[in-house]
């Protein structure tokens, strides 16, 4: 104790203290953030999956993402993005990217399920990250009403309250969510693809994500009770419809009614 108090005026004491503080906060942060990562285990992937994935990666992805997925000028590093990010980006066809642009477009997938799985295994082996969600949260048996509230508060400002999609700045956009699988919706929430923010488990719990997916699937299954939904785009499509179809038909009738005379 005496030795410690004698050394407290040592020139390096301040540096040592700073180091200890940084270590402590960094360690705490690391613990806190891993809580958010949905079980970043690679247990479901075999070593051969990762090895095959590595080959696929080198052949198809490394041009932009760099050898070892360490990133390049053309694409970000994929160390630590997790299997969920790969499953979403490759599974929806967004990667490999069709063309350079503000945002990758959804297109028919370029890899089959097994290859996607192998790519995910490879990227997951590079560092811990969000993993592919388990079936339990994708059963679409959550509380749709709660999911609706979560959706309106967290998602509707970009994706539209009816999940019809919306515009973002400079050519970016939030896509419509009809026909998107529950798994991909979940993965998008935990990884924040393109311009989407990450909704980690501290932000929306897995239970909440299950509710959101339930809500989206339920409104999709409900269809449109009032007839054709005109794209569910709100007053703009309604206005266009009344001017073109509504007034158009009425003008046709007026011409018919007055065609016999003058």
């Amino acid at each position, binding site marked *: 104790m005496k030795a410690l108090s004698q050394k407290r005026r040592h020139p390096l004491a301040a540096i040592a203290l700073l180091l200890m503080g940084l270590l402590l906060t960094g360690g705490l942060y690391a613990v806190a953030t891993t809580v958010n990562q949905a079980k970043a285990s690679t247990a479901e992937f075999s070593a051969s999956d990762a090895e095959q994935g590595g080959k696929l990666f080198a052949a198809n992805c490394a041009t932009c993402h760099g050898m070892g997925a360490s990133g390049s000028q053309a694409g970000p590093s994929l160390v630590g993005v997790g299997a969920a990010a790969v499953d979403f980006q490759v599974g929806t066809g967004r990667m490999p990217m069709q063309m350079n642009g503000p945002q990758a477009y959804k297109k028919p997938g370029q890899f089959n399920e097994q290859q996607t799985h192998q790519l995910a295994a490879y990227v997951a082996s590079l560092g811990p990250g969000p993993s592919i969600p388990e079936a339990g949260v994708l059963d679409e048996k959550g509380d749709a009403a709660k999911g609706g509230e979560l959706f309106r508060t967290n998602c*509707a400002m970009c994706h539209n309250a009816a999940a019809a999609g919306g515009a973002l700045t400079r050519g970016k956009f939030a896509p419509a969510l009809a026909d998107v699988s529950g798994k991909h919706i979940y993965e998008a929430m935990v990884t924040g693809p393109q311009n989407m923010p990450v909704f980690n488990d501290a932000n929306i719990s897995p239970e909440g994500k299950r509710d959101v997916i339930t809500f989206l699937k339920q409104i999709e299954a409900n269809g449109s009770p009032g007839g054709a939904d005109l794209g569910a*785009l709100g007053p703009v499509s309604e206005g266009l419809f009344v001017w073109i179809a509504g007034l158009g038909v009425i003008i046709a009738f007026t011409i018919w009614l007055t065609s016999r005379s003058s």
Partner: protein
Amino acid sequence: MSAASRAEAPAYVATTKTGRFTDFVDERVGGSGILREFGRKVFPDHWSFMFGEVALYSFVILLLSGTFLTFFFDPSMAETHYAGSYTPLKNVEMSVAYSSSLDISFDVRGGLFMRQVHHWAALLFVASVAVHMLRVFFTGAFRKPREMNWVVGGVLLILAMAAGFTGYSLPDDLLSGNGLRIIDGVIKSIPVIGTYTSFFLFGGEFPGTAIISRLYTLHILLVPALILLMIVLHLFMVVVHKHTQYPGPGRNDHNVVGYPLGPVYAAKAGGFFFIVFGVIALMAGFFTINPIWNYGPYDPSPVSAGTQPDWYIGFVDGALRLMPGVIGNFHFEYIIFGHVLTLNVLLPALVPAGIIFTVLFTYPWIERWITKDNREHHVLDRPRNAPTRTAIGVAGFTWYCVMWAAAGSDLIATHFHVALNDVTYWLRALFFVGPFIAFAVTKRVALALQRKDREIALHGRETGRIVRLPHGEFIEVHAPLDEYKRFKLVGFESLAPLPAQPNEHGVVDRKEKRRAKLSQWFFEDRVVPATPAELEAGHGHHEAVEAGESQKTLSH
């Protein structure tokens, strides 16, 4: 004596029971006189004259469907938990107004259909009012003696927008709440009185608990009553002024050529009501409008993408979207004596709408001042025969459409795969240059059409028959028009610029000089209709061509 006069036999005794009954009523209310007067009113027939009718019928349909909705709608902002049959909103906390709107949609028999009839009819109502107004403007039907009826029509347009907006807000869903929030912001941006007005309107801080019931009273009582009053005035003036007619043989400013109201026109108009009703019912039956269940209950925190007002408020929303927050280092917000003056809300929200309605209301007097035309006009102008007026109208319409398009800028961006920023930049540019381009193009097109009319009137129409003349030249034979068709092309008045006139003191004042300049601008480019002498010359000329003898005829 009294006994004798009491027993005096009536001049006419009906033979049938029905006859005696109608005679009884007629003697007391004078129905046959009214019927004789109105039944003989002559209305000219043209499809473009029917938009006012469409508006009237939509309004009747609005009254009928709206009455049905009031049976089930509860404009209370009290909190409740939804217990109806739409499961994605089960147990969600919401206002009674929203809950009852959902009940109308899902739990009242025929409720959703009636809601959709009401909303589609509302969109069609304002659209037909707008098209009617455009028709009146472009054909010059607002000229003497109809200036006041034009103003009544303008008031009706504003009332129709007010009726629409108050109704749009009633379901208290997320979309309408977002709309109200924008209105609240606009009101608050008005200097000095803004905040007080907002607090007065909402009964405290937005959103409060009073606004829905207040809007409801306005929507079902005050605004429809005012609309009815204005419709009565509007139709009264139509009867007083008689209907206008398009130019044609035998038509002038002292007659009306068409069918009498009874029986032909009454039958047509009555049938047309059911056509309009049918079209609206089909739209309501097959196409969703305002799916309030998608939007969820209003809560000031969430804002949905794609939040727009109904089309008739769109141009104001578009102007707000076009306004930049800052330009370089230039800010639009000032703090004056501790009060914030927010020009980037105030300017776009009030100035374009203010300009549009000011010009709209005063235009008949502006044109009257420029032309000094004090005559009554019952024969309409074909739009091409008033090139400057038509160009002004199209310029204004273009300006409106730029703002209108801006209200859908996000959907333009997503659906045409362009950047939202670029859409905004282009629309900002068009906001300033669009009207000028539209003016120039329209005026040139109108003048070109007039020249074409003149050409056809003078030389006849092209027959497509090619004739070879003896010396080898080929010409196309032109066939002369019949007189009815030719009248349409030459029977109009082409106003010339009116130079500055001295006033009663013999002085040309500055105002008069300005007027003369405007008159010059208005009428300097003009195509004079072919005169009878020219027609005669042209006609002879053609006979000569067909005879194929004169060298002069080769100048085709």
